[in-house]
């Protein structure tokens, strides 16, 4: 019988990226005991990769900005499928959260009068992103980490959660194991905050690291929570495409915010050729106007490169498919051209985009101050996630909360760049606060010991099958290949039906995977365990995408290329049925209050 190490907290936070750390800090500040479980070392979570900045209507650069504009931008970007309450709270509270981060030691780039500087980003009407060069995520996670270690939380690094524990219908904590020795743990808790990030590893080309296997989504789903908007997977338009080994690594939208342009192999700025109706009014009609916008001319409108990510990704995809792409299957992203407009452009680029300069120089032997980059879409972000109450971040399971990428709602059908870092802060804080309140208001929970043993035995099963059984890495590759090809940027019914078939076969193979060696830091074993989660989220994405018979935001259906007004009134909910099967259903959006409708109208 496997032994369990036991810990007990008021609030357990699963995940230690921006949302998890912010939630843990807030819960601790509310006077409860807090445990944090994370899959990697502290400070290594994917937040570290965020480059562009934190969207918040501080109005430091353009005083026309305020929460109402930010709210309207977020709703427009999400094609009005967003949880309007979350979009409202996010726009209102983001500035305060940025200032709070500064009070904890984060240093942002400054305006001439010494305030926090803000940069342009896709879909944001005014310069709105607080940033520091192109390493804002690192600044943010390090600030939260360094503040958090003194805030009174116990951190369990390099642990994977196997399942959420329930006491009746209420959450009771989680069980899992550590990488180091493969020891099993029980973290008993009155409230749990999921902050596990996304699902990028379900796809072959992704900007996400090995960690992003949809754990939080699968844990919540298996515990009976509802998931929402799973069809909306964001393909970031600019990932590296060459060399092959770095394919998918992110190239920040900040490159375009600073004046970078997209060209096809004929040298044409193809983004001017296709500007969606919703954005016509706000988009520049000449290259010169676009340039002036990036340099802060308030009278100019944004260049089409700064349209929303879903649209830019599709345009790039179209150029490549039409044979107008770059040599390695992408298009050209050029920031070096600004030398025609700016003196000392080389230094300017290095100062504004230091880590991009470094990344290309070191990994692709390319100097971005002199040559164009080759870029193409990469799986980046999951808009969908655990369905929540907008105010409290509470899921449909009492005591279970979620924040950050694992949560659904704020971004609707497409997320604007920069809205993710602010999401982590605003809703990490809310989730931490409400989880602490829940823990205070509710009594102790019990742990079901037989459930623990079942979870541990299932986790150890791959060792019994041994190294001659199915290879877990191969099953993962095959799943990534299938999702990439069949449920990617362009979707169609027959291909998605085929994907469901493949997922079914892979589920059988996943049951048969085996590993050799022992429990000590065994990457093969970890991969085997993550497979179950990847298969659940892949199926949820596919089923939701099949049901939504229209194209909207990140979902593009070749067989239903237009928007459908009826679908525009519905979210898709995914839930495990009593029969153990996955159920998908459409559900009407909650009605928006008149005053928010008025804000949207006013900003049109």
């Amino acid at each position, binding site marked *: 019988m496997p032994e369990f190490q036991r810990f007990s907290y008021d609030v357990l936070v699963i995940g230690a990226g921006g949302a998890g750390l912010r939630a843990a800090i807030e819960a601790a500040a509310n006077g409860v005991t807090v445990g944090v479980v994370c899959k*990697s*070392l*502290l*400070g*290594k*979570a*994917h937040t*570290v*990769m965020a480059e562009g900045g934190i969207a918040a209507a501080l109005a430091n650069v353009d005083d026309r900005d305020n929460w109402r504009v930010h709210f309207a931008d977020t709703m427009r970007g999400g094609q009005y499928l967003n949880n309007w309450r979350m979009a409202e709270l996010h726009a209102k509270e983001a500035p305060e959260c940025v*200032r709070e981060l*500064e009070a*904890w*030691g984060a*240093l942002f*780039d*400054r305006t*001439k009068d*010494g*305030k926090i*500087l803000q940069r342009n980003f896709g879909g944001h009407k005014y310069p709105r992103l607080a940033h*520091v*060069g192109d*390493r804002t995520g*690192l600044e943010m996670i*390090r600030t939260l980490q*360094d*503040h958090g*270690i*003194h805030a009174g939380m116990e951190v369990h*690094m390099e642990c994977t959660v196997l399942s959420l524990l329930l006491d009746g219908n209420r959450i009771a904590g989680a069980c899992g194991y550590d990488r*180091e020795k493969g020891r099993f743990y029980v973290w008993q808790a009155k409230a749990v905050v999921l902050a596990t990030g996304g699902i990028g590893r379900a796809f072959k080309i992704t900007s996400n*690291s*090995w*960690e992003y296997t949809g754990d939080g989504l699968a844990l919540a789903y298996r515990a009976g929570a509802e998931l929402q908007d799973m069809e909306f997977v964001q393909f970031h338009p600019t990932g590296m495409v*060459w*060399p*092959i*080994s*770095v394919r998918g*690594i992110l190239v920040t939208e900040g490159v375009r915010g600073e004046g970078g342009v997209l060209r096809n192999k004929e040298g044409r700025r193809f983004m001017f050729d296709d500007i969606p109706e919703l954005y016509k009014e706000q988009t520049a009609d000449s290259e010169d106007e676009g340039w002036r916008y990036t340099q802060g001319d308030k009278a100019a409108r944004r260049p089409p490169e700064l349209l929303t990510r879903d649209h830019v990704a599709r345009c790039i995809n179209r150029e490549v498919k039409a044979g107008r792409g770059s040599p390695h299957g992408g298009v050209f992203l050029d920031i070096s051209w600004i030398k025609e407009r700016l003196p000392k452009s080389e230094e300017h680029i290095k100062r504004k985009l230091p*880590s991009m300069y*470094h*990344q290309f120089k*070191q*990994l*692709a032997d390319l100097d971005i101050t002199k040559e164009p980059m080759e870029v193409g879409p990469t799986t980046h972000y999951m808009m969908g996630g655990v369905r929540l109450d907008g105010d409290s971040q509470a899921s449909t399971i009492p005591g279970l909360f979620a924040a950050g990428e694992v949560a659904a709602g704020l971004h609707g059908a497409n997320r604007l760049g920069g809205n993710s870092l602010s999401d982590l802060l605003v809703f990490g804080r809310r989730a931490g606060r409400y989880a602490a309140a829940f823990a205070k208001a509710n009594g102790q929970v019990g742990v079901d010991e037989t459930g623990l043993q079942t979870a541990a035995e299932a986790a150890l099963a791959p060792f019994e099958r041994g*190294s001659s059984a199915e*290879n*877990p*890495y191969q099953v993962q*590759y095959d799943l990534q290949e299938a999702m990439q090809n069949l449920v990617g940027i362009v979707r169609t019914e027959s291909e998605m039906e085929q994907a469901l078939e493949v997922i079914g076969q892979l589920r059988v193979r996943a049951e048969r995977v085996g*590993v*050799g*060696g022992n429990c*000590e*830091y*065994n*990457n*093969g074993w970890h*991969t085997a365990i993550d497979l179950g989660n990847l298969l659940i989220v892949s199926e949820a994405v596919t089923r939701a995408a099949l049901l939504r018979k229209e194209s909207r935001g990140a979902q593009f259906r070749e067989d239903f290329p237009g928007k459908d007004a009826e679908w525009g009134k519905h979210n898709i909910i995914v839930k495990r049925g009593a029969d153990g099967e996955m159920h998908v259903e459409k559900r009407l959006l909650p009605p928006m209050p008149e005053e928010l409708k008025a804000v949207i109208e006013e900003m049109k």
Partner: protein
Amino acid sequence: MATPATFRIWRGNSAGGGFQDYSAAVEEGMVVLDAVHHIQAQQAPDLAVRWNCKAGKCGSCSAEINGMPKLMCMTRLSDIDLNEPVTIEPMHTFPVIRDLVTDVSWNFKAKKTIKQFKPRPPDAPDGTWRVQQADVERVQEFRKCIECFLCQDVCHVLREHHKQDEFIGPRLLVHAAALEMHPLDAEDRVSDLRRLHNIGYCNITTCCRQVCPESITITENAIIPLKERVVDRYFDPLKRLFRIL
């Protein structure tokens, strides 16, 4: 064009271990971590390696490659002579967990001993501060640190003399410098640097600076100015005289 190459990887745990050879095909643009992943996926599924971002931003995949401390994700195979076996071993300064993975938890514990950021009172009535860009840029260098701990790996005080209980090492001195030189910080860490963190142990061999993947000028820009603050306060003969008087 794939070229065959041999990778000599250290396998073992805290009880001991040794090198094992694997061959893998090397293609254009590959980094060391790619080769390790290929070997893991095809030949040694239980090979332990720690990694995350694979873009030089998280600092997880530190190892010693042909004897040099490096990030596996940023070391291109085209920069290495593939006619000889490429040796990959875990960082020596930290206890081995398994294969290429070491126990770096000491760094996290030691960091807690450094007094945290304490801002001066806000400059504006709305609770915000005014900072000049030049002041932000001055400490940027230190804040770039990705905590890969390669500098800790090569520090003699830690690697050869095992003074982990008395000395915090270059990474954490950089952290202290980032705080001390932060334009808003009002805390005083000089006494701790001298007595608790023993900054005097560092004899500025610059090994740490040479291995930093973020090119932070650790010794010249962080450690030496901190040493100067300690010297100014405690060893200035005039100030000493005043104290005696």
